[in-house]
């Protein structure tokens, strides 16, 4: 039985999103366009000061090559600097626990992970990273990796709305504005709310105490709230502490749980309407939002049904393994669905201990390409690639030249869209296969049987989808996994960004032809159905065999009471 108050929470969550996204999305377009807004008096001067001190000309226009090059150079600078500070953290300040330097492959993995907005964590925050690395290293990437995603989305949108142009905007300006006007103010407010509820924000060393009954306990602390706010808002997901938002200092109350869940989807959902505003069509935005929402709700229904069904091994439903009492069952699966639909990857319950079908939904959400709301910016630019494919396929079916928003879609765009969609999928399947055939891959498993297979498949899905959640039994802190996952995350990020930018660079040169009777409409429910069809066919065809060997098989065996 699902308790009534849990159903109310889900309803509030979904209705809240449907109301907030269009309102906030419209406002975001104002914040990012450079128009005068409520924050200009506060940040306007800071913005120009930033450009001046860095030697940036904010009115410089960049073509797709220049824009892409700036993204790449900025990201790789981030990877190098973040790696270095981990390698020397023992001589840096703000290390009250005297934690030693991070091992090289782990440092590289973590650096790639945070720069690519994945936040896969092979380490435990409280025992591995100093406050310096968490705050000055990781928090910064939490902001700028999200801002980079927004920048790519803006560039692609300009490619669609500019008539026979060349410029896609200025990456530095998009980056700075997204950070300054959107991410910083929201995070600041949210962080303070989190602290008021009990999230820690402290620079003192860990507290060693004797418990009421006389046991020793070490209580870790840290400047957590400031990082956790942006971890959720920027779809990063990397926990300050090892067990992420299951840990009470990271997510202390049901209210923080709800707000964190909501902030996972807030910006990705709102950006759909920002896009709508920029292309001048609210209707297009609603159709995209509708498609995303349908998939989210379907996943949620399957997960909930699965969690509340009887497990024939334990002869009970609603297993509490890996879940917290204050959060409960339904809020755990609502979170697991939301965090994997968005490429967030933070968890409030251990995905590895979820019922097999809830685990399947989490994995499949990631494998769809992180486009069901997806990452900040990256979710929508990923979805736009699927829209191009859908337009193309539908165009072939009715024998018309495929067009999207008045721009002709040619072989060039489709080739690059296919590359961007297939590259991460290839990483997932090939790397999983490699891990399954090697000792280095198999020796990290915690569970055997189909669940062990799922641990590996989930890990590479998480890397290539830039999600960051895990079936965390897998011991990923080995040279093999640190390096393979690192490569997977890079391909999952830049293997999509570069094709997107190439498409934007080609689209921007084209003229916009007015819609005629023969134009395939992309703002009605027929198109929504076609888009849903394409998303599911690509996802299902690619991953059905693998999912059958993992969570599906586990579900069937569980129903027969078989254990491993």
């Amino acid at each position, binding site marked *: 039985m699902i308790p009534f108050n849990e159903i109310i929470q889900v309803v509030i969550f979904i209705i809240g999103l449907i109301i907030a996204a269009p309102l906030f999305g419209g406002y975001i377009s104002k914040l990012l366009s450079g128009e005068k807004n409520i924050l200009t008096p506060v940040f306007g001067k800071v913005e120009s000061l930033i450009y001046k001190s860095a030697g940036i000309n904010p009115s410089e226009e960049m073509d797709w090559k220049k824009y892409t090059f700036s993204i790449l*150079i900025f990201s790789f600078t981030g990877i190098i600097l973040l790696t270095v500070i981990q390698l020397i953290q023992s001589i840096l300040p703000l290390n009250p626990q005297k934690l030693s330097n991070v091992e090289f492959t782990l440092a590289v993995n973590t650096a790639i992970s945070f720069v690519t907005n994945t936040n896969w964590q092979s380490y435990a925050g409280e025992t591995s990273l100093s406050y310096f690395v968490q705050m000055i290293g990781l928090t910064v990437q939490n902001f700028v990796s999200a801002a980079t995603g927004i920048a790519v989305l803006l560039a692609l949108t300009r490619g669609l709305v500019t008539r026979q142009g060349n410029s896609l905007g200025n990456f530095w300006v998009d980056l700075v504005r997204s950070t300054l006007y959107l991410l910083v103010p929201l995070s600041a407010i949210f962080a303070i709310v989190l602290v008021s509820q*009990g999230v820690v924000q402290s620079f003192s060393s860990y507290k060693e105490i004797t418990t009421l009954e006389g046991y020793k306990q*070490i209580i870790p602390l840290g400047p957590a709230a400031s990082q956790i706010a942006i971890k959720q808002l920027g779809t990063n997901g990397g926990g300050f502490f090892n067990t992420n938002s299951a840990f009470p200092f990271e997510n202390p109350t049901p209210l923080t749980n709800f707000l964190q869940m909501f902030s996972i989807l807030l910006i990705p959902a709102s950006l759909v309407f920002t896009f709508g505003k920029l292309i001048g069509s609210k209707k297009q935005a609603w159709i995209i939002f509708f498609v995303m929402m349908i998939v989210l709700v379907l996943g949620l229904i399957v997960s909930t049904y699965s969690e509340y069904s009887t497990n024939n091994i334990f002869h009970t439903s609603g297993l509490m393994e890996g879940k917290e009492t204050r959060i409960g069952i339904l809020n755990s699966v609502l979170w697991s669905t939301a965090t994997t639909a968005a490429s967030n990857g933070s968890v409030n319950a251990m995905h590895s201990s979820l019922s097999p079908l809830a685990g399947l939904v989490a994995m499949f959400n990631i494998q769809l390409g992180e486009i069901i709301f997806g990452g900040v910016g990256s979710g929508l630019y990923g979805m736009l690639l699927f829209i191009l494919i859908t337009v193309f396929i539908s165009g072939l079916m009715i024998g018309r030249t495929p067009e999207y928003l008045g721009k002709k879609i040619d072989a060039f765009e489709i080739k690059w869209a296919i590359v961007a969609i297939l590259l991460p999928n290839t990483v997932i399947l090939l790397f999983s296969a490699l891990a399954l055939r090697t000792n280095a891959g198999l020796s990290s498993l915690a569970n055997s049987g189909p669940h062990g297979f799922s641990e590996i498949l989930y890990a590479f899905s998480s890397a290539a989808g830039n999600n960051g959640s895990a079936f965390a039994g897998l011991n990923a802190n080995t040279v093999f996994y640190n390096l393979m996952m690192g490569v997977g995350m890079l391909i999952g990020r830049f293997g999509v960004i570069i094709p997107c930018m190439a498409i934007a660079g080609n689209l921007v040169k084209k003229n916009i032809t007015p819609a005629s009777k023969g134009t395939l409409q992309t703002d009605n429910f027929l198109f929504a159905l076609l888009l849903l069809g394409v998303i599911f066919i690509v996802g299902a065809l690619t991953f059905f065999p693998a999912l059958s060997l993992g969570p599906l098989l586990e579900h069937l065996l569980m129903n027969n009471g078989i254990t491993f």
Partner: protein
Amino acid sequence: MKKKILTTIKLFLILTLLVGIIYPLFISAISMLFFSHQADGSMISLDGKIVGSKLIGQKFTSGKYFWSRPSAIDYNPFPSGASNLAPTSAKLKQLYVNRKENFAKSNFIKNSSLIPNEMLFASGSGVDPHITPASAFLQVDRICNSRNFNTTQKEELIKLITRIIENPQIGFFGESRINVLMLNMELDKIK
């Protein structure tokens, strides 16, 4: 090329100053002003000595105290952790059977299907501070027995549990729950 790299590094450092230093310090300053107790870990003192955090669960094994949930890390969050065992794990099944038997026996429970799930499965954080009210009530007989409570004291204990229940926040967020450490500290006050 050289200029571009220089620009990138400069911008990177400026942004680091802004969101890696100024922003967290700003949050710290506001926290210290208005929520210093929470920011420092919601620590609880007894006779002037810190005995733990309200938010971090503790291990209780004595018959005289309410027990917390099973933990994969034995309530020592350095680092925090969960079992990550699968819903088809034979090991988890064995743990479940043992915990059920043990909890039923220690608390004189005849019908072990009454035991709520959270007492039989390990939490996500390893330091879940809460149990459900039902799990607390099931432990009353054992505690009264260990402490040689008379009927008035037992009634007082039951009233205490009812009083200490945290209801869903703002009416509907989350679950009804009991903070085990807070309950045990109050329990010690029953004379």
